[in-house]
């Protein structure tokens, strides 16, 4: 039954989109955090998605298709430049009076959030539809 596999596919899609939403939440929460040095300041985190092709193909060679689902390969920190501000009164200021702000771009995060939640909803719709089809199949002949 390939309809059962749809639940795996949409499940992996939902889980990776929720990882994305999670990183967005973390980034927005830490958007205003500052630090004494450019190395220790919070950097925007981004998940890296890839189609989970090789794994599933090895496990389930009989599958009629190439790739099944999405996987999160890892979460990388953005290497966008960190902003330095001259705030000598700040308790975290270094000896030159500089504090370093995180490189989170709020606009980018909001756009990412909308994209992630739309994709999440789409996956739910597909799973819901597959469920309807399966239920109809189960009641076949009645």
């Amino acid at each position, binding site marked *: 039954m390939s*309809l059962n596999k749809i639940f795996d596919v949409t499940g992996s899609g939902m889980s990776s*989109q929720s990882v*994305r939403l999670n990183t967005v939440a973390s980034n927005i929460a830490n958007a205003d955090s500052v630090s004494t040095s450019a190395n220790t300041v919070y950097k925007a985190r981004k998940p890296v998605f890839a*189609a989970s092709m090789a794994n599933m193909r090895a496990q389930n060679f009989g599958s009629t298709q190439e*790739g099944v689902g999405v996987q999160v390969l890892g979460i990388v920190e953005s290497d966008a430049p960190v902003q330095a501000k001259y705030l000598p009164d700040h308790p975290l200021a270094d000896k030159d009076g500089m504090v370093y702000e995180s490189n989170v771009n709020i606009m980018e995060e909001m756009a990412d959030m909308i994209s992630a939640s739309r994709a999440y909803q789409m996956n739910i719709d597909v799973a819901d*539809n597959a469920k309807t089809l399966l239920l109809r199949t189960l009641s076949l*002949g009645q």
Partner: protein
Amino acid sequence: MGACSWHVYCLISRITQMEGNKLALNIDNAFGVFPQALNVHENRAEVLANNLANETTPNFKSQDYDFRSFLKNDNAAMKTAKMLNTTDAQHINNSNNFMLEFLQYRTQVQPSLDGNTVDSDVESQQYADNSMRYMANLTFLTKKIQDLMLAINGGT
């Protein structure tokens, strides 16, 4: 590729021709093309669901079955596509896998920066279309079963 240009019943009737009718009466023939049609729709639903799940995956290429090229192929070509020779019990039988031959990458309408070719509007429309066809098949199959039941029970 033409998205709505395929007609599953032509396709199925050719598959049934290929299989040959070994028994005069078997349950597959009694149900006509519909069981295999359900199979085709299930496979297609899986491919489309995978496209939608990978909507935001960089470099993911959207796929779909190209049934037009399937129908253009003659029976002999389809036979070789379907019947891969297996000379050992451990060889993987590809009898359910012949549709893989017709899995093609979708032509993109709007290019995206990250190399992803999934157009979620196209995919969800195709998915809805496919599930509607699946439902129609289920309805036909239900009617077939009811006909058989009527023949068995004699309308009592």
